[in-house]
Structures are given as structure tokens and as C-alpha cells.
């Protein structure tokens, strides 16, 4: 299927014809991950509450130097709401499999259907200072789409997705695996990669903060770019090109 497939649905209002923006594999992975990431953060905060201190190096306990003492996550943010480490671990370790294998499924299918190559490939000229500055100004003016290529992702969008999909998510999965004593025996390179178990726990936490930041920016931009058309496109796949000028005229 090509990017600019015309919708057979001609009843949709608007000037431009809808375009097919999100493939089925992308949509399935998006919503499965959206639920999974909430469960992972909620249960992860309960686990953090069990020992809210973070260290660097191979080991770390109460008498060692902690680089961060985190605040206690409130019960309205945690899974389960009441402190229960055992049940939090059940949620976390089951949905870790959904997160990990889900990402693998998305990565393989996106390579095969060329989603990555087509939509996320960053070209050299996009990283030039002039282009970055131009795109920043466009963002500030709340213009997120190139009228000539409405389906193309802009450079900040590409960087955010590439960073999340290829750095933050792999980092949180690998650092999580490095926390497992069984996996430490199976794959000792995990610990070498992370610089020790206490470091892996810190990396796990920092990657979580990065993902939370991504979610906040992602949701804010979905709202600014048109909450319902954007959400609908992630449900049905079809996206109608927003027409900002037209909207202002109507208002």
C-alpha cells in the first residue's frame, strides 16, 4: 500500500482526501504499548517505593552512596494502589514480556513493510542548522505538516520517535533484563553494558523518565495538531489533512 492511497470514503467532510497514515501493525503496537507502558510505570513505581534510592556501580544498599533518593510515589500513581511489592512484580514482569516482544514485533514488521525506511529515515539536510531553525519556527507557529508532503514526518517528530523506539525502549528493556540475577548468569554482557547492577537500576529509572517526557510531549502535540483527527488516524489508519487556515476562517 502506498502512502497516499485515496480513501474510498467520499462522505468525509473536508477539502483534502484522507490519506492512509498508520498501518495495522503500527496501530496494534501503539495501543498495546500505550496500555502496557501505563502498567509498567505504575507497577515500576511500587517496586521503586520498596527501595527509593539509586546508585551507580556493581552494588548499592543503604550504607552506600546513593546519587538519588526519589520521593515516594503516591498511591494514586502506583499499581497496586496499596503497597504490595509481590503483586507489583507480577504486573511488571508479565507486561515486561508484552513490552519486549511487542517492540520486537513492531520493529520486524516495520522493517518488512518499510515503515522505518519510509517515515523515519533522517536525511543529512534535515539536520542542518537552517532546517532545524525553520522547523522550530514552524512548530512555534503550530504548523506541523508540510502542505506539499502532508504525510511526511518533520525532523523533530522523526528525532523523537527514533530516540524513543531505538534508544529509550531498548535501554529500558536491556537495563530491566540486567536486573535479573538469572539473566546475569545467562547473558553476563548485560552487566558489562550497563556498568553493573546498581547502574542498570539507575539507567532503568532514567529511561523511564525519558519515556514519560516523550508521552507528555507526544500527547501535547497530538492535542495541538488536532486531537480527534490524530486519534482517529491511529484507530482507523485514515488521516484527514488538517487545514489550519480554513479552521481560523470558520472561527
Amino acid at each position, binding site marked *: 500500500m502506498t502512502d497516499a492511497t485515496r480513501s474510498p470514503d467520499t462522505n468525509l467532510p473536508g477539502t483534502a482526501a484522507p490519506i492512509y497514515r498508520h498501518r495495522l501493525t503500527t496501530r496494534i503496537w501503539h495501543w498495546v504499548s500505550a496500555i502496557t507502558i501505563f502498567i509498567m510505570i505504575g507497577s515500576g513505581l511500587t517496586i521503586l517505593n520498596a527501595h527509593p534510592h539509586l546508585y551507580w556501580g556493581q552494588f548499592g544498599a543503604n550504607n552506600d552512596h546513593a546519587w538519588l533518593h526519589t520521593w515516594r510515589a503516591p498511591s494514586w500513581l502506583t499499581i497496586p494502589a496499596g503497597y504490595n*511489592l509481590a503483586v507489583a512484580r507480577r504486573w511488571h514482569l508479565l507486561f515486561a514480556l508484552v513490552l519486549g516482544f511487542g517492540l520486537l514485533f513492531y520493529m520486524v514488521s516495520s522493517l518488512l513493510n518499510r515503515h522505518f525506511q519510509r517515515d523515519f529515515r533522517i536525511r543529512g539536510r534535515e539536520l542542518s542548522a537552517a532546517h532545524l531553525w525553520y522547523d522550530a519556527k514552524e512548530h512555534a507557529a503550530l504548523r506541523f505538516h508540510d502542505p506539499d508532503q502532508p504525510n511526511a514526518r518533520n525532523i523533530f517528530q522523526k528525532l523523537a520517535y527514533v530516540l524513543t523506539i531505538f534508544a529509550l525502549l531498548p535501554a529500558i528493556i536491556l537495563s530491566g533484563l540486567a536486573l535479573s540475577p538469572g539473566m546475569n548468569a545467562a*547473558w553476563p554482557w548485560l552487566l558489562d553494558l550497563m556498568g553493573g547492577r546498581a547502574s542498570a537500576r539507575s539507567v532503568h529509572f532514567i529511561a523511564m523518565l525519558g519515556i514519560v517526557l516523550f508521552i507528555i510531549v507526544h500527547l501535547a502535540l497530538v*492535542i495541538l495538531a488536532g486531537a480527534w483527527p490524530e486519534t482517529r488516524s491511529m484507530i482507523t489508519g485514515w488521516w484527514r489533512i488538517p487545514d489550519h487556515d480554513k479552521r481560523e476562517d470558520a472561527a
Partner: protein
Amino acid sequence: MSTLITRRSLVTSAALGAGALLAGCDRVAEIPAARKILFSGEKLNMGLQRALSNRHSLAPEYRADQMSPFFRTNGTRNPNTPDYNAMVADRFASWRLKVGGLVARPLSISHAQLMAMPARTQITRHDCVEGWSAIGKWHGPMLGSVLKAAGVKDAARYIVFTCADLYSGANYYESIDLIDAFHPQTILAWGMNDRLLDVGHGAPVRLRLERQLGYKHAKYVMAIDAVASLAGIGLGKGGYWEDNVDYDWYAGI
């Protein structure tokens, strides 16, 4: 329809949805069928880990200069029962490690006999389920040597440890399977950091199970039994924490 209202309602429903998801997780965990799925993660993870690793794969061992300057205690710091205090008073001369169950030759091993056995020294990392970890040096015979001396029968599937410390009035207990029981780093440690194991860390003997979390490393070990099934042990899930607080029996993750 104004765009603003659509946006506001969407934001509100997204926020409500997120809140409902967090609250809903607790409701879901109460439904028996959902709980079963939730708890199936343990078997999935254990199966995956066993499939990905060699059963003899070793936990990382560290250099002496990488050891924790202070190794905190956790769980029971002192069983403090009359029987235990009497053993501490006579420096464990009256302590006997009973090895029984499905074995050809039940054993009763004294502290001196255990210390005379060929021993392994390993500097390993102890990971608590709560998130802290500490590196210490452990010294003692391989559990496998003791089990070989007793002759584990073919019907045996698990090794159960009964301890001197009491939880809710009953002795602490834990269990492991034969893959971990005969793993070379699974030792009955009587020495720690070049000294005799102290009371806080499980004197006279504690289990070291280096590929699993700390709560599996039974302290104050009194008896070791080979069994065919965990059904008759405690409430049947294989350990005090497993039976009472839903901790995973497989603590490799």
C-alpha cells in the same frame, strides 16, 4: 462542533482513562481468572530464562576489591528462640543439619563435619527483591556434594530448607528445584567475608543460590529434605513468602 470542545473532552477522557486503567488493574487482579493470567508470568519467565541459559551458567563472580564495604542484614536478624540461643551459646556444637526425605542415606551433619568438607569460595552479588544489592564473599561446601552423600532418590524433584527462624510462629522454609540444587555455585555457606557466618547473616549455615533473589537464600538452615512435590509443604507454593505474600517461587528475575 467546536474544535476546542472536542479537544477538551478528549483530554478529559484520556486523563480519566489513565486513572481508570490504574484503578482497574487492582480490580482485575481480584478476578480469579485474571489473577491466574497475571501469575502465569512467573512460569513464562522461568521457561524463557531456562531456555535462554545453560543450566550450568554461572552467576558473575567479583574481585575482592569490588566487595561492599558494609553488607546489610535483612529478614530475620536473630531468630532469638530458646533453642537457637542455646546453639549460639555453645557455638553451634549441638547444631545438626538433618538431611532427609527422599534420600537413600539420611544424614545428620555437625558444624565441624560441614566445615571439614571440600568448600567453594565465591564473591557474588546478593540482590534483594526490594532493589538493593551487596557483594560479599561466601565459603562452604556445594549443596550438591551433601545431596550426593545422602543419595537423592529418582522420585525427588525439589529440595526443601527448614530454618530456625520463626515467621508467624512457624519455621521459615524455602525450596528450589534440582537444577539449582546441583548448580556449582549453590553452596551451604558457613563462612562470610573470611569469618564464620554471624547471626545477622544466618549462622551457622545459610543457602547461597546465586541466580535467584535474596529471599530464596534460606538462613539458619536446620533441615534439608528431598521431596517429590511441594504440595505438602506449608500452603503448597514452596516457601514462606510464596505462600503468604504471593512472591514468585522462581526468583530468577
